[in-house]
């Protein structure tokens, strides 16, 4: 199958407007004849479910959490970008588009990114109308701040809890539609398979996480808004429950998986403290506005934050300011992360593990006063102190990169439809807008753009051609999928080995971090693929899952998710092996400049790598979607 991205003809700035006019509409009276399933209730899922219900469609919404309000979008701290240009500093739709394309290292589609920048302003208007309490100036107008990878201030924020406030806004809109009877909500319910009838997505099979009941749900279209797959690495900033199961099982039913190796390692997280560690905590990137990153010029193993205060200026290496004078500490995330790894690999890392660098506020506190810093970052400083036991007002923070976001995801066309008819993927779940690296404050923008302002238009184009009749859930396709789900659960429960699910997950995470992490090479990737295969085999022979299906069983839930991670991990390594260039967050050691910067090879790799599942233990097939750039000139990114 040749991939058709369905990008509309015409000049970049007119594509979306024209497309909206050209796509088919479903008349208001007919919308109520269509059922749509939305899986996931983060920014993308909640905003889509609410907006589609407002239009008149019947929605079934699913989440594994006990309430839709708890989806992991809630943890986003820093902010959301928009091209409002309120600060009068030269921002525009085109500049936001340009920064996003460049930040993504020219591995995303021009048309999608332009549309994202175009609707960004509507998002801010919508959220304010919902009662989202964004930060304001004394004059009552909205405040903006700057973020990595941009030279304008275009980030709207609500203290350090922007994701929370935007999600609660979308959740309130969703709640209103639940009350109106237009959305039926299924919390504590996990999607375990996608059901196809005549090649079209027509429903899903779920497990009730309280009773274990396996159930089928039928619809005219299915929307996946199930987030990213960063938890493949075991340790990440994702929530404990974040998983790839829905997307992966859809992949196995025919949805192509695009650019799986594009993962974002966030530069400012609290370092790992020991083997017991279950997750990593992000410290907002906004800290890089005032914090200065450094390590000692000469290796000083075990240097603590308290001792760091006494290191004289001339013995400190503010390596980002030294190497990138134009952007300094505000270089994009991939550049900041890779440089932290480089100085640690040189032996100049600090703290008990040597896997950390300092983020120092002493100069900012001197310049602005403690009070200003407290106003800006108070909650982050408190959080740090709580976890690390050190006071960032007195001593520098210690930070280290951690897995944070996955740019890769299900392949979608301009309408956000996957390679399966009637199956859509929105938000982090798709691959479309961030290329090989996402800029800060752009994830919230994309999730809400997809859910509020893009999918509600594009899904109508598909439904307008669909007959109204519903597929009953006793249809053979549903029965078959239910049986498949039941068989997999029985298989997990019957292994009865001697290793816990978490032990397997930790081992997988270590393989991925060591060989498919911040720096990758051919030898390591080949080794990783072998190790992942062995681990997967061992999982199915030695995993220990207690209890039964017909009860709340958190070990069983986790086992199914880890089984999927063990398959997806191999594809990530395979994709990384195939892409023998460095771009954005994907750094191949074989492809770097003399100054150790990422070196793209546009002639060979200016494409989206979309992978097609071919059956268990079969090699996945690669299809390429060429990326065409008509409006920006491809240059080697420079933040110097």
């Amino acid at each position: 199958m040749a991939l058709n991205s369905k990008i509309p003809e015409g000049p970049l700035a007119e594509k979306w407007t024209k497309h909206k006019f050209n796509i088919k509409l479903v008349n208001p009276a007919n919308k109520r004849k269509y059922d749509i399933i939305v899986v996931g209730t983060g920014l993308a899922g909640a905003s889509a479910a609410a907006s589609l219900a407002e239009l008149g469609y019947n929605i079934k919404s699913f989440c594994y959490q006990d309430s839709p309000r708890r989806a992991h979008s809630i943890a986003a701290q820093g902010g959301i970008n928009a091209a409002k240009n309120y600060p009068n500093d030269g921002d525009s739709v085109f500049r936001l588009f340009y920064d996003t394309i460049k930040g993504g290292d020219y591995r995303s589609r021009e048309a999608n990114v332009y549309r994202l920048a175009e609707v960004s302003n509507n998002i801010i208007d919508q959220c304010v109308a919902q009662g989202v309490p964004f930060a304001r100036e004394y004059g009552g107008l909205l405040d903006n701040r700057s973020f990595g990878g941009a030279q304008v201030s275009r980030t709207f924020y609500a203290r350090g809890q922007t994701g929370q406030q935007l999600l609660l806004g979308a959740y309130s809109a969703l709640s209103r539609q639940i009350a109106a009877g237009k959305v039926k909500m299924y919390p504590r319910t996990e999607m375990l398979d996608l059901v196809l009838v005549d090649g079209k997505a027509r429903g899903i099979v779920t497990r009730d996480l309280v009773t274990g009941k396996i159930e089928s749900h039928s619809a005219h279209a299915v929307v996946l808004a199930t987030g990213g797959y960063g938890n493949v690495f075991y340790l990440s900033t994702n929530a404990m429950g974040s998983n790839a199961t829905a997307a992966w099982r859809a992949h196995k039913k025919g949805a192509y998986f695009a650019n799986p190796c594009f993962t974002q390692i966030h530069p400012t997280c609290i370092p790992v403290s020991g083997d017991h560690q279950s997750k990593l905590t992000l410290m907002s990137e906004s800290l890089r506005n005032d914090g200065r990153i450094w390590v000692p010029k000469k290796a000083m193993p075990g240097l603590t934050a308290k001792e760091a205060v006494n290191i004289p200026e001339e013995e400190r290496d503010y390596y980002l300011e030294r190497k990138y004078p134009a952007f300094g500490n505000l270089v994009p995330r991939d550049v900041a992360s890779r440089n932290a790894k480089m100085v640690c690999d040189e032996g100049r890392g600090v703290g008990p593990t040597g896997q950390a660098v300092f983020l120092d506020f002493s100069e900012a506190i001197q310049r602005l006063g403690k009070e200003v810093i407290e106003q800006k970052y108070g909650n982050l400083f408190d959080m740090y102190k709580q976890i690390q036991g050190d006071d960032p007002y007195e001593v520098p923070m210690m930070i280290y990169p951690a897995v944070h976001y996955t740019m890769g995801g299900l392949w979608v066309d301009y309408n956000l439809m996957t390679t399966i008819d009637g199956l859509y993927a929105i938000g982090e779940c798709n691959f479309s807008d961030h290329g090989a690296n996402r800029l800060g404050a752009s994830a919230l923008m994309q999730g809400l753009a997809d859910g509020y302002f893009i999918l509600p238009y594009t899904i109508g184009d598909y439904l307008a051609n669909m007959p109204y009749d519903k597929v009953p859930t006793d249809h053979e396709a549903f029965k078959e999928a239910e049986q498949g789900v039941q068989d997999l659960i029985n298989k997990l429960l019957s292994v009865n080995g001697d290793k816990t699910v978490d032990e397997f997950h930790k081992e997988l995470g270590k393989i991925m971090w060591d060989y498919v992490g911040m720096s990758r090479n051919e030898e390591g990737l080949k080794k990783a693929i072998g190790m992942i295969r062995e681990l997967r085999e061992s999982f199915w022979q030695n995993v220990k899952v207690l209890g039964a299906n017909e009860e709340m069983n958190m070990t069983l839930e986790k086992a199914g998710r880890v089984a999927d991670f063990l398959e997806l991990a191999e594809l990530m390594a395979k994709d990384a092996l195939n892409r023998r260039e460095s771009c954005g967050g994907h750094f191949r050691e074989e492809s770097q400049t003399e100054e150790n910067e990422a070196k793209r090879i546009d002639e060979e790799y200016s494409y989206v790598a979309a992978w097609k599942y071919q059956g268990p233990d079969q090699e996945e097939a690669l299809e390429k979607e060429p990326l065409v750039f008509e409006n920006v000139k491809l240059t080697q990114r420079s933040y110097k």
Partner: protein
Amino acid sequence: MNLKLNIWRQKDSNDKGGFKTYQVSDVSPDMSFLEMIDVLNEDLVKKGEEPVHFDHDCREGICGTCSMVINGRPHGPKQGITTCQLHMRSFSDGDEITIEPWRARAFPVIKDLIVDRSAFDRIIQAGGFVSVNTGGAPDANSIPIAKEVANEAMDAAQCIGCGACVAACKNASAMLFTSAKISQLALLPQGKLERQRRVEKMIWQMEAEGFGACTNTGACEAECPKEISLVHIARAHREYIAAKACSKNV
């Protein structure tokens, strides 16, 4: 350090439930409280015993999922944090720690330390929103909002919906949770148009869910991980009286 844990175990909502005692050893002070339970659970699974079920997700204090009463206090001994942000350096070697679920009639236990908090969702569904559809919103700067007002709305909006306020209250009242949303939206010009309808419906729903009455003891404020102030309860009362005075829904 070594610790003795008394943990509430309850198979399902029909089971009577009871405490069971566990010993955990070699606990590092750098572990979070939930990581300590993870270690216990790994041991239990290895021994073939069912792990302790507890709700948790983001593990950074914002999703509001984790919910444990630790030594009689929701989210444990420290001020202004959730259970997942509590670290073992707050305990000492040899400590005995009692761990229970939230206890309230409106939050029935599902299993072990997990309770059903869907009542909170229904309170929001009753009116915790501004009735605007997607599209057609005016420019975000068209209505200036004083910084102080926006800040106070934000103080209320920070609620994570964990339910510690209910667990802390002797009457199991949900007034702090409910009032935080009423107050946020009553402060903002966008929310003012529906303020009367909203407060009536939300309070009515709160009562219908079986939460107790608020007697202003302030236990909720003391235990709230986001330190949401009683001021919002006062504002919600004022909103309620104002709404009732001109209500058509007598």
